[in-house]
């Protein structure tokens, strides 16, 4: 499975400035592992020591918030878009 990952501005220092990165993975967790293999250190910004998403990180697979699905276990279909977005809500 190939997924396109949208990288937020604050993490682009890990990706050499790239906004979009293509990696392999069939779940969000696998996508993050592959992302970290290509860009070491980035996973630690997204996932804590208990292997759960940090509470101010929102992740969407094709516009679905993974917290409404299975978190890091959420399936990622071939050519899906995975968006990483800081949690900021203003009203």
């Amino acid at each position: 499975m190939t997924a396109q990952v949208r990288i937020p501005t604050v993490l682009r220092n890990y990706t050499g400035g790239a906004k979009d990165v293509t990696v392999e993975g069939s779940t969000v967790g696998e996508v993050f592992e592959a992302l970290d293999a290509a860009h070491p250190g980035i996973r630690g910004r997204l996932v804590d020591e208990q292997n759960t998403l940090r509470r101010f990180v929102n992740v969407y697979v094709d516009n679905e918030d993974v917290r409404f699905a299975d978190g890091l276990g959420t399936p990622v279909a071939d050519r899906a878009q995975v968006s990483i977005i800081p949690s900021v809500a203003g009203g």
Partner: protein
Amino acid sequence: MSASTTTLVPSESPAGAVRPGAFGNAAALACRECGARQPLGALFACLDCFGPLEVVYADEIVLSREQIAAGPHNIWRYQPLLPVPVDVASFPSTEPGMTRLVRADNLARELGIRTLWVKDDSNNPTHSFKDRVVAVALTAARELGFRVLACPSTGNLAGATAAAAARAGIRSVVLVPKDLEPQKVLTTAVYGGTLVCVDGTYDDVNRLAIEIAGEQADWAFVNVNVRPYYSEGSKTLAFEVAEQLGWRLPEQVVVPVASGSQLTKIDKGFGELGCLGLVEPTPCRVFGAQATGCSPVATAFAAGHDVVRPVRPDTIAKSLAIGDPADGPYVLDITRRTGGAVESVSDEEIRAGIALLARTEGIFGETAGGVTIATLKKLVDGGRLDPDAETVVFNTGDGLKTLDAVADAVGPTATIAASYDAFVSAGLL
């Protein structure tokens, strides 16, 4: 006021270096999760852990009640406690604040409360508390060299942003959910900026705004990339309440919760006044109010959780319809620390709350006001709010923007011919 006196050099902005004193007594941005500090600039998420950033101030602030009283009759009287320059009042803004604090004896009597006040922020220039936060965000945007003032909004922020940009003579770009109340669409569009209705919920709109903010280097999204400054504006609600009470803190407050920012900043504001010796640092129990149709924080409070699970909103209180409230965990912290609570009320209770406030005090609040009043009633009825303690509730918006909420419930008493006989026959004496 902060733990450190370190003053960091402001970071680069879209226009280059920031002028000295651009942010007044603000010293840095600090992560509320891990404590890491960043220089003052256009940052909103911690570079280490993605946590939200908050403005921290120099330790050596000295401010008296007299200095404040001699200031302008708007939020800029509290300039030393905001991330704004000393000459902030010389720039065009909507000059919000110093809204009335209404002693609500009729409502208090009806609910069985001894002393109750309503902080009525529908008196602001665009009829909601959002004028406060936008004024501070506009200042930050100007000082950082942004050229466009933008926001995602549940409605009130939309009008406040469009009006502030018009006053400042810059472009505004406002994103709202397409099912927003027509009154809020019109009262934004009239200011002439760019208004975009998005097919989605507020959380979808917010996500889009975050993505645009990441790509448009000279756009200031007031509640995204200048959010640390913006949110500080809500402290002025606390400052005004304390000043209007004769420089003391209330014993209890009931605050509507959308993102949760306002509640956390009211608590912070009271704390700062105590630290500066402007009031006695007496305890204040903080209560949060949500609509049951969007109550992720109230649900987490009731369950004893520290983490707020997002929900998909379904409520008439659209201005509070944030399913993924960024400050939710901090609302839980504050309400638990102070002995308060977070409660939610149904849409029917919200409508009744709007009517109750209007009937007893002559204040027509919007749906968020209905949430707050209905929650106040629920807390009193349930014995969780002390009826003998002085209480302040916040009406943060104007009922004229959410007319649909009451359209089916209120109307003329009678329609008659223009004669005295008809008046009598209709039983109107």
